[in-house]
């Protein structure tokens, strides 16, 4: 039987602290990862050969290696070259870098789906490349990329649990400590699972609303 007094008094207080850390990680990493993704995607499509190559190398590395390995490098590896991050910072940086790589692929696909004539018309009006990208290409491409980017953000909510592997005690980490102490793995991880489900639902709902709000006839 699930004991409610255990959940209410012993489990929930530390979990809520953990949830707060998780939320902080997400609120920081999701927008920063998206911005990074936009920059990388634009660099890949419109950059010169060097920039384009660097952006491709970036995505290849971060999509091609396990996130956990990336986090270990950031937290356990970098101190050997004199760079120290707090667990929270290491986790946040890792998530930003990783989700940026995934976002960039969704956004790149969306940019490449925009008809060439859009850029041509912008340039014919006298816009430079930068303005054309900012005012004409990205507003269209980002709308098209919303479903893919939403997917990445909901994944981020879930893989934020890896933060505890670099000793950043967020939701999963907080739960694991309690579970270990009381040997109540089922209850603890069931509750944690429900909390993740709630968070993902809220994020999904928010992103759906955003997509609807930004919807333009004939685009998307």
């Amino acid at each position, binding site marked *: 039987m699930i004991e409610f007094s255990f959940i209410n008094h012993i489990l929930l207080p530390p979990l809520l602290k953990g949830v707060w850390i998780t939320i902080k990680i997400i609120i920081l990493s999701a927008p920063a990862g998206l911005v990074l993704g936009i920059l990388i995607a634009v660099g890949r499509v419109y950059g010169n050969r060097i920039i384009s190559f660097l952006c491709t190398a970036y995505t290849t590395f971060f999509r091609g290696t396990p996130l956990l390995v990336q986090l270990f490098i950031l937290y356990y590896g970098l101190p050997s070259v004199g760079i120290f991050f707090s667990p929270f910072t290491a986790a946040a940086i890792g998530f930003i870098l990783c989700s940026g790589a995934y976002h960039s692929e969704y956004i790149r696909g969306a940019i490449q789906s925009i008809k060439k004539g859009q850029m041509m018309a912008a340039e014919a*009006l006298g816009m430079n490349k930068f303005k054309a990208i900012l005012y004409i290409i990205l507003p269209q491409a980002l709308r098209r990329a919303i479903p893919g980017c939403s997917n990445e953000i909901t994944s981020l909510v879930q893989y934020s649990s890896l933060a505890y592997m670099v000793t950043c005690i967020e939701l999963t980490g907080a739960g694991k400590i309690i579970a270990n102490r009381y040997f109540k793995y089922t209850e603890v991880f069931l509750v944690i699972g429900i909390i993740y489900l709630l968070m993902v639902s809220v994020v999904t709902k928010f992103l759906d609303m955003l997509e609807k709000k930004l919807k333009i006839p004939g685009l998307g």
Partner: protein
Amino acid sequence: MPEEKKIILQVEDICKKYGKEEVLKGISFEVRKGDTKVIIGPSGTGKSTLLRCINQLTIPDKGKVWLEGEEVTHSKKSINQFRQKIGMVFQDFNLFDHLTALKNIEIGLIKVKGIKKEEAKKKAIEELRQVGLEQQANLYPAQLSGGQKQRVSIARALAMDPSVMLFDEPTSALDPELIGEVLEVIKMLAIKGMTMVLVTHEMGFARSVANEIIFMEEGKILESGPPYKLFNNPKYERTKKFLKKITELYGESDEKND
């Protein structure tokens, strides 16, 4: 007298190669203020490439372009300053899909010319009225018919107060019943004295509106002259054949009875 009118656009010896294929083999012509020049010719003869070479959307391999006496090619000035003065209308409209008709016109004014928002809006509405679409100001491109889209795109180019307008087959992507409304707008511009270069297959229209028709074939100007001369007394058999074929195909409904 036409000879005394100021030269707006001058094109000299434009050449362009794509790989081994020579698309343009030395094109030269000039356009004077208020002129309407119509470029005709079989498809694949480089007419669209020529227009794009004028505002450097395609960089020619050789040749020079002057706009109002200033050299556009090899200029120290940014090409964007010239492009503002060269309005361009595309075959497939290229309206910005995420912006309403009104915003499509405003954006160049605000982001390129740096005009204040309220002023830009006023100007944009005025331009929409000119092409008869002020009722459609808040519709997105996907909500407009082809003819309406093309009229908005003409208004977008006009709003920049260009010295010359380039039209790249402006009616070729339209359903037949929508061609008239677009030609009507272009005709109105001609009457108002806008300087224009058009690539088109609408021979009736060319005949009634152009001061000069340029017949291009295989990347060269084969012959050029006023419409009556080209239609009634062309120098080359090839010109005659082309005009006959294209007139049969597109009709002459727009011909003026003069």
